[in-house]
């Protein structure tokens, strides 16, 4: 990593490793904010007729919890690894477009700050603090989100914030596709790519195809709210169901955008710690690609209660059930990877196995609502809340933690403490099952989701209390993780190049890697270059010092300035001030113009 110090060196950095770390710390901060929102939600629901927060505040809390976790925590935590690890895994010195990469990060940061500013800026809109945060759910269903039913600035923050974040994801998506396709080291054929890089590639294709759909959906809603168009207005002959189709056409690929990177992490972690190659590498890769393709044909399973008719319901039930097949294949291949191995129970392996164990539950409950008749009793109830948390928490978050414990030494040069790590794992594992398993039953007993209160006679009070206790146990486990991060800064064991005996390229260079990553770009002759296989011995790691000087591009202010134009632009409709729009556009254009003509030298 670059040795330059000082704030300016971080603000102008185009080093993928620094940007990866920026993504990590920012996403972690948002993860904590989303977690605190979850704790308020659970405290409110700990007993019937909860009185901790008002209905309005609760609606803002669950909207921001979902929006924050999906767009500001899980996606960017994944992005942190794309940034840091993909160039290292393919033997590249940086991503294809380093300044675009910086731009993606700054847009993400500003979008996240813009959304969260809504908690505090109520007084600017003649409302109290905690009054104007988005309150229409992370799914923002029209026509509730139309101006007529949501007159305040709450939904404005949401639509504008998501539009900003979409730009970040799209820019990063194109960047990583080009990087993975074009920047591979000699000999790094597609079928030699580490599975994490493969799943990153699939994820980026989903991002660049899914985000335009929500961009259009949001643009319609923005036009409806600000310019009086009628894209979702029933009285004008339109239908609010259009929003649902657009949203879920994005929303279901989004689910796989969140889970595929975690599957990639697990596919890299398991072989390392069982000392065996991934079982059925081509099948694992193809099933990942297949899951990505199939994710486009299942969106209406979010809409079985809409009444699309028995034919449509049957078709979408079938496509949804089919997606269980490649998913099941992956799980069997992971178990077969462990089978016959020499399994070392590191914290990273704990989390990877936790991913498999919990994701199975989320997958199976998914099959129960792939069937439309049973879904009619489950959709919009707590049963579905249980399902998505087994997928996103049990799946994505466990997978990402496996990645954190696995790659932290590479990213910082220090090993995380294993005892604290395993304590973290077990508390989180028990906590999540206490928090989310009872929700299956809570939903089946008739409690809808997104309710700030429930009647005592539903008979779900004690189950909810258990769930709340579980949520606080998760909070405790995250606290231990933070302690681990903090202690590691100064007291962590220094990491050698390869603390785990990994097979992939990132372990062939120092921890953390030098700014140029590889002193000599390696030539790849096998899928597991650092291991002995039938045909090859292990590769020779690049020398510690580069044999000849390496040109590394310098930093740039312009991505930051261009990115800053976007929240300023968004401020214009929010405050109904024209000159702000010109200011935002000017910043954006200035940034892009100077960036385009900047000599990109050391």
């Amino acid at each position, binding site marked *: 990593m670059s040795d330059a110090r000082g704030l300016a060196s971080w603000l102008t950095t185009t080093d993928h490793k620094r940007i990866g770390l920026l993504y990590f710390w920012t996403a972690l901060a948002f993860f904590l904010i989303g977690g605190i929102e979850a704790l308020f939600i659970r405290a409110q629901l700990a007993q019937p*007729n909860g009185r901790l927060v008002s*209905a*309005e505040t609760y*609606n803002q809390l669950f909207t921001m919890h979902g929006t924050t976790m999906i767009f500001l925590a899980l996606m960017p935590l994944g992005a942190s690894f794309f940034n840091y690890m993909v160039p290292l895994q393919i033997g590249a010195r940086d991503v294809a477009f380093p300044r675009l990469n910086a731009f993606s990060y700054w847009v993400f940061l500003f979008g996240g700050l813009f959304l969260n500013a809504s908690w505090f800026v109520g007084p600017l809109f003649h409302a109290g603090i905690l009054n104007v945060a988005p309150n229409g*759910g992370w799914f923002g*269903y029209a*026509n*509730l989100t139309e101006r007529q*039913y*949501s007159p305040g600035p709450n939904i404005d923050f949401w639509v504008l914030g998501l539009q900003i974040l979409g730009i970040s994801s799209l820019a990063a998506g194109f960047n990583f596709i080009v990087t993975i396709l074009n920047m591979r080291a000699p000999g790094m054929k597609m079928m030699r790519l580490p599975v994490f890089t493969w799943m990153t590639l699939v994820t980026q294709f989903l991002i660049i195809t899914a985000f335009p759909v929500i961009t259009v959906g949001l643009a319609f809603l923005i036009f409806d709210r600000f310019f009086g168009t009628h894209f979702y207005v*029933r009285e004008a002959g339109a239908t*609010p*169901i259009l929003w649902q189709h657009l949203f879920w056409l994005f929303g279901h690929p989004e689910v796989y955008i969140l889970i595929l990177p975690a599957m990639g992490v697990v596919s890299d972690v398991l072989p390392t710690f069982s*000392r*065996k*190659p991934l*079982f059925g590498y081509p*099948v694992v890769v193809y099933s990942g690609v297949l899951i990505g393709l199939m994710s486009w044909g299942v969106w209406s399973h979010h809409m079985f*209660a*809409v*009444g699309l008719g*028995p034919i449509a319901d*049957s078709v979408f039930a079938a496509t949804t*059930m089919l997606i*269980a097949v490649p998913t*099941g*294949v992956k799980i*069997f291949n992971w*178990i077969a990877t*462990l089978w*016959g*191995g*020499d*399994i070392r*129970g590191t914290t990273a392996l704990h989390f990877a*196995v936790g991913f498999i*164990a919990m994701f199975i539950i989320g997958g*199976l409950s998914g099959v*129960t609502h*792939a*069937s439309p*008749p*049973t879904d*009619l*009793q489950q*959709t*919009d109830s707590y049963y579905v809340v249980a399902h998505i948390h087994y997928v996103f928490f049990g799946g994505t978050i466990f997978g990402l933690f496996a990645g954190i414990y696995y790659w932290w030494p590479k990213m910082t040069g220090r090993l995380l403490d294993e005892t604290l790590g395993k304590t973290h794992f077990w508390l989180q594992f028990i906590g999540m099952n206490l928090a989310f398993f009872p929700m299956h039953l809570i939903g089946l*007993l*008739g409690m*809808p*989701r*997104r*309710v700030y*209160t*429930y009647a*005592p*006679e*539903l008979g779900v009070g004690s189950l909810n209390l258990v769930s709340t206790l579980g949520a606080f146990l998760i909070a405790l486990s995250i606290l231990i993780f933070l302690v681990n991060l903090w202690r590691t800064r100064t007291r962590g064991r220094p990491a050698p190049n390869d603390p785990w005996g990994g097979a992939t390229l990132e372990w062939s260079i120092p921890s953390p890697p030098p700014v140029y990553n590889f002193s000599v770009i390696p030539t790849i002759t096998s899928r597991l270059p650092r291991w002995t*296989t*039938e045909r090859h011995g292990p590769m020779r790691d690049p020398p510690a010092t580069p044999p000849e000087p390496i040109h590394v591009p310098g930093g740039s202010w312009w991505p930051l300035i261009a990115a800053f134009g976007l929240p300023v632009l968004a401020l214009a409709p929010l405050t109904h001030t024209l000159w702000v729009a010109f200011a935002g556009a000017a910043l954006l254009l200035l940034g892009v113009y100077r960036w385009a003509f900047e000599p990109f030298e050391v």
Partner: protein
Amino acid sequence: MRIFVAVGRLRLWLPTAALVMSGCGGPFPQSTLLPRSDFARATDVLFTDIFWWAAGVFLVVETLLVVTLIRFRHREGRAAPKPTHGHTLLEIAWTLAPAAILVFVAVPTVRTIFATSGEAPADALKVDVIGHQWWWELRYPDLALVTANELHVPLGRAVQLSITSADVIHAFWAPPLGGKRDAIPGHVNQIAFRADRVGDYGGQCAEFCGASHANMRLRVVVDSDSGFGRWATEQLEGPAAPAPGTIAERGKAVYARSACIGCHTIQGVSPGVIGPNLTHVGSRTTIASGLFPNDSAHLASWIADAPALKPGALMMRMKPPLSDADIAAIVAYLESLK
């Protein structure tokens, strides 16, 4: 001062709990696991079926995972593992196995989709269900009967619900009688069922619909055939006329000159259509869409300041406020409307 308000609130809540506990049928009035109609039973059978397949798969795969972890855990001196890269036959097998199980799930699924698609026989009792922020309008077109928040249906007779919305998207869900359907403005969704046990069940809006989504509840009463007939006859009668000189009569006068008439219908008294029809409000057991018991105390606080009891409620605080005596008179009048 604050503490008195709080205690007052608490006193309002306690009888609510007591009433609802005793009033509703059984301990889990809103459970999907206690089906009480053919529709609910069909989905329950299907769910049970899928559940056992899922439980079987869960057991097999998780056991396999745990056994693998224990059997192949690291031990000193273990020989380096054999680098197996795959096994084509095995991989084909575990692709086909889940696919085969899914066939066993998909076939009954499609059969149930068509069996529960919402079409009822021609002689079914028709009910139009219209979602409003945040209450349910219920119209029986064949009986020319309009009520709110308490759905009465006869035992054993086919019922056809036609569900739509007057404002945003809601979802009608009465779990013991079957699955939910969205109430969408401009669309009509149908549910058909035949209730098979007399009882008093719970239901609730299931699609997030704004501030008081959590407070958009309803009661579903399955009556015996004669009981339903009696209820319908009573509902079809004109509103009770309060006896001269009673406080209820004064209440009628206050009602007739207050803002109430802008939104509520009482047959022959006021024609408003924005809020629930009150012609027989005294016969209902709850107010505010299943939130509170229909008693004098709750009615009085509701009339005085509805949004304080139900966040966002569109029934605004009376301005200028009604006097306590006027409120008491209206309460007496509404309670007389059996």
